[in-house]
């Protein structure tokens, strides 16, 4: 299957999955059925497919939140199932953006974004400087002290993007990042996401239903029933 999907040399792939299988409820619900995938650093890759085809599960496995039943997930040459310090991995290599922004509504934009940086042990000053840059790049510099409740859907997703990029991860995993936004805002947020990841050399792996947006990415992978069935 890997031949079919333009494999990159092992040394170049930042994300590599080999024959990855995943099921839930003791095998009753098969979600991933032998996924082979390689992604080069700095590329933006869209995962498309109907709900339940395994896009989110694949993102979770690549992000180290779960382990496959079979097969290996390798990030930057390291097999995640053998990785001991997953917290360090999550802090420094991975950023997550979700469909529902998953921000803490009672905190301000600034406080939400500082959370991962402070958790990672960054100084408050350095974290604020980083946030200042991201806020300018996302056009959120005037919203830093606004509570999440007061922000629009697009602003919330921009905040989520800032938070995901706070620790300068090498991989950004986005699960339907524009799924809850209207068409216009969706386009703007996607453009921002793509622009930021390209500018900063971040690898983007994004699950989306929006083929229009997916086509703008470097690669578009179509999934069905837990398998990769087509790639462009």
């Amino acid at each position, binding site marked *: 299957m890997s031949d079919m999907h333009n494999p990159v040399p092992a040394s170049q792939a930042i994300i590599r999955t080999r024959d990855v299988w995943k099921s839930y409820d003791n095998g009753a619900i098969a979600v991933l059925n032998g996924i082979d995938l390689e992604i080069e650093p700095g590329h933006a890759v869209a995962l498309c497919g109907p709900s339940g085809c395994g896009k*989110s599960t694949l993102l979770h496995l690549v992000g180290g939140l779960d382990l496959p039943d079979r097969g290996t997930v390798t990030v930057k040459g390291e097999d995640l199932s053998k990785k001991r310090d997953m917290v360090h991995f999550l802090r420094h290599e991975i950023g997550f953006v979700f469909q529902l922004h998953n921000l803490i509504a009672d905190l301000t934009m600034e406080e939400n974004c500082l959370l991962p940086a402070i958790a990672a042990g960054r100084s408050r000053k350095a974290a604020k400087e980083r946030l200042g840059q991201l806020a300018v790049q996302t056009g959120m510099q005037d919203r830093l002290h606004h509570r999440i409740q007061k922000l629009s859907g697009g602003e919330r997703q921009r905040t989520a993007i800032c938070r995901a990029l706070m620790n300068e991860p090498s991989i950004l995993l986005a699960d339907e990042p524009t799924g809850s936004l209207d068409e216009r805002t969706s386009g703007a947020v996607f453009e921002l996401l793509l622009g930021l990841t390209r500018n900063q050399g971040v690898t983007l792996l994004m699950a989306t239903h929006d083929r229009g947006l997916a086509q703008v990415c470097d690669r578009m992978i179509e999934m069905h029933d837990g398998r990769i069935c087509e790639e462009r």
Partner: protein
Amino acid sequence: MIFLKLIITNLMRHSIRTVLSMAGIAFSVAAMLTVVTILQGSVRMFSGILSSDSEMIVFERDVSDLFFSSVPADAASRIAALPTVQRADPVLFGIVSSAGHPIITCFGVTKTDARLARASWVAGDPGSFGQSQGGIVLGQRAAGFLKAGVGSTVPIGHSSFHVIGVLKTANGFEDGGVFMPLGDAQTFFHKEGTSSVVTVKLRNNNDAKAFKESVSALSGNLIALENEEFSHSYSQFKILKATAWAVGGCGLLLGGMGIANTMIMSVFTRIREIAILRVNGFSRLQVGGVVLGESALVSAVGAAAGLAAGSALLFALKNISALDGYIDATMQPLVLLVVVALALVTGIAGALYPAIYAMRIRAVEALRFE
């Protein structure tokens, strides 16, 4: 700072629940502080009676209550004659009753007793004590509640006594008590020729060990202890102190259960949020720290409120005229420290299960059920 903000934010989300938990701890702390302080004050006052101008106390070996102790008069005389002894005061304790007052402490003392010498006489002549049969001296508070003064006749038990003086002492028990000449008290309580204890002032404090040995040699039935040693070993004091801490501890346990309930609810209602924190790089320890931090904050604020409430209650009790002198509301720094420490430990212990639960939340499972 951001952790503190997160902690405060979580608590503010359910402010009523948080306030109720704080109130639980506050009431527990106030109850423990009040009960322990009052009972320790009682112990202190009783110890004060025994240690009045003395360093040692001699009593019957192996008695659980000093009211049942019998020190023969000849032993008291031989103790007073020991070379290490400067003065020895035999005291007979008894409980008497009068109309409407079922419990009045009675002290059978000699006319040279340190307790009488130390007290300030409000009325009557100190020289008249022990001069006449049936003449008693009342503590000032006892005179108040018995509505008696010098010249009055007071019915006590099945007898009547003539009041020859009223004195004021700093000790609440003494101030609410009756002083009888030792001989009269022995007759009244059918304990002729004995006293409950002998309080002893030594010529030299370093003679304590030698004095103890002398008393043992004098009579195998008697034991001599230094005042502090007695306070620590006397079983009645131990029971009182243990009761105080047990009652307070039960209160604190309830407060801790309140915290546990609050924190369990708090964690269960934000499983997804905890999962997001984990995805954003929070370690298990950091997640647990947030939960324990919430509990510690609730406990700390509750303990502070409890200290304030307990202090106010003690102040009020101290100033109730009916209890005048009976309550020693002096708060001991160690008690304050222990009560606050127990409140914090209880609060944190109550949050252990919720914290462990939060630490074990698997982000991927919480995220799957969006």
